[in-house]
């Protein structure tokens, strides 16, 4: 059984979080993500959860990390300027392997930029924004249904891999209203608990350690310093640092095929679009309007770790066309995986690509 709603993307995100069992939200108002916080402020207390408006986004990120260590499913939601402020504590979450979900409803940047307009300019920041080497997971919804489904998925991935997971939405998807089908229940993957008597940061074969939840008598010391398997600071030992950071990256990068989430459409085509987030919608329109043309489409939902393997499905591809609402951030990543030309179709200004802009790119590269 499902029920049908007509919801704004941000509402769908908040409802997806609630369905996933989110019981802690720490946030700070920022356009165009505020509706998520407002929705959680109404709903969470009624479900026995905690909503807190923190003093800034640095504190928001800190609060969800603290909550997560008590076992909470914790999230925050923000946009570009707030995302920038969160970066240091995002690195802390990566270093301490703290499951948490961060929603970034992207707007035009840099700086205050275009608070009410759409963009995808934070895709590289999501991957590399905090200092040092680490890895994260980033999901990109292209419609209101996916705002719901990918939020649920974000919580499961965060708990499974013990990593901050980003829902990299954009103003278009966050604010548009669409029909959405709500399932009665959603799947849940829980954190692997720490086996009593084992070291709190000693990873298993999957490179993920068991989670020593606060308040369960395991006496876990959590530090952003380079730490050994006991969790104790060990910041001047080159081998400990190298193996810890390598593991933090490998546990995500090695699982890129396991978690990959994409659609392959017309794999035999010679002209292939690759898109994530709002530009998916323009590509869908172009495909719908040009059924006679030899067009393929790789539609990506999990952008980080990048699903490089998916590109191999397009054996006849002569060009990859990548419409993005930035200056080609993911196009550059795609170039690392393919030999054929990658044509970036950047769009700045806050509006979606028009179908004609994509057609023009196709025709210029026949």
């Amino acid at each position, binding site marked *: 059984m499902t029920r049908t709603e007509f919801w704004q993307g941000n509402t769908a995100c908040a409802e997806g979080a609630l369905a996933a069992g989110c019981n802690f939200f720490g946030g700070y108002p920022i356009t165009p993500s505020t509706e998520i916080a407002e929705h959680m402020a109404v709903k969470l207390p009624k479900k026995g959860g905690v909503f807190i408006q923190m003093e800034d986004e640095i504190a928001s990120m800190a609060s969800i990390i603290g909550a997560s260590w008590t076992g909470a499913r914790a999230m925050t939601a923000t946009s570009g300027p707030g995302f920038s402020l969160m970066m240091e*504590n995002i690195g802390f979450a990566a270093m301490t392997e703290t499951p948490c979900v961060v929603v970034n409803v992207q707007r035009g940047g840099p700086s205050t930029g275009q608070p009410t307009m759409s963009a995808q300019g934070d895709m590289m920041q999501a991957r590399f924004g905090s200092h040092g080497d680490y890895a994260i997971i980033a999901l990109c919804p292209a419609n209101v249904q996916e705002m719901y489904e990918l939020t649920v998925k974000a919580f499961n991935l965060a708990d499974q891999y013990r990593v901050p997971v980003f829902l990299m939405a954009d103003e278009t998807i966050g604010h548009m209203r669409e029909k959405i089908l709500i399932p009665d229940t959603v799947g849940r993957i829980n954190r692997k608990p720490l086996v009593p008597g084992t070291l709190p940061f000693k990873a298993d074969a999957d490179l993920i350690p068991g989670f020593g939840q*606060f*308040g369960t008598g395991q006496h876990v010391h959590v530090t952003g310093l380079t730490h050994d398997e006991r969790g104790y600071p060990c910041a001047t030992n080159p081998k400990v640092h190298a193996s810890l950071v390598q593991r933090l990256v490998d546990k995500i990068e090695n699982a890129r095929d396991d978690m990959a989430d994409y659609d392959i459409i017309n794999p035999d085509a010679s002209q292939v679009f690759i898109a994530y987030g709002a530009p998916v919608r323009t590509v869908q329109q172009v495909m719908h309007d040009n059924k006679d043309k030899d067009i393929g489409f790789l539609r990506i939902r999990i952008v980080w770790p990048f699903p490089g393997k998916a590109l191999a499905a397009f054996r006849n591809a002569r060009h990859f066309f990548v419409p993005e609402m930035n200056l080609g951030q993911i196009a550059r990543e795609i170039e690392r995986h393919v030999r054929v030309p990658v044509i970036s179709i950047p769009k700045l200004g806050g509006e979606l690509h028009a179908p004609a802009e994509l057609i023009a790119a196709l025709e210029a590269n026949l």
Partner: protein
Amino acid sequence: MSFEDWYRQDRLPHIYCAGCGNGTVINCTLAAIDQMGWKKEETVFVSGIGCSSRAPGYILTDSLHTTHGRALAFATGVKLANPNLNIVVFTGDGDLAAIGGNHFIHACRRNIDLTVVCMNNQIYGMTGGQGSPTTPLGCLSTTTPYGCAEMPFDLCELATAAGANYVSRWTSYHVKELEKAVKAGLETPGFSFIEALVQCPTAFGRRNKLRQVADHVEYLRSHSLLSVKRDRMLEKGEKIPEDMFVVGELTRRNRPALGVKKP
């Protein structure tokens, strides 16, 4: 149990310099916690960055050693998500009052049920002796080589003005008083703030004519003005010497608090 049972023996030796005052404050805090009869599994220590913030790493409970200045924001998340946990935050003057100043006033405003112990050495010790928001006027540090030209914060007045339920100041000389103050803070629902002035021979004392640890502790003793005595002096219209700082229980009230464990 004694306070010594709260330490992680496998973490010794610790990083603190010979003569550092932080150990005294940590001992007093653990002694107060021990008197409360708290269990280790229901106690969490949270800290930011700096010498003082290393303390949780030596204590055998769950602990969160976070980013610079943000301990109170992390602690807010821990406490609200599980109010049954007792939270103690160790911090220092730079961590709390400079980079973490905004979190400090908002944690006080929320009156969230945390006990915050601030080891105020009036300097950035871990980075080698830079001026902090509590470095006294005229004092030397590596970033105030001609004497500090800025007025320092009074952290206790700040906590009181921002809304904390309990505020005390003592020093590393006042061991018994400090222990009692921490216990009073632990007992008080809402935000409790205990400032402990501590000697830092390595970064502060040797630049400010307090090279000998005993001299610095004696300075802290002799320049402490009991709050009750201060009140008497004010009543009589006497002038409070400018180089004295007030110690004692400065605020105790019962404003609505956040995150208090349900009985």
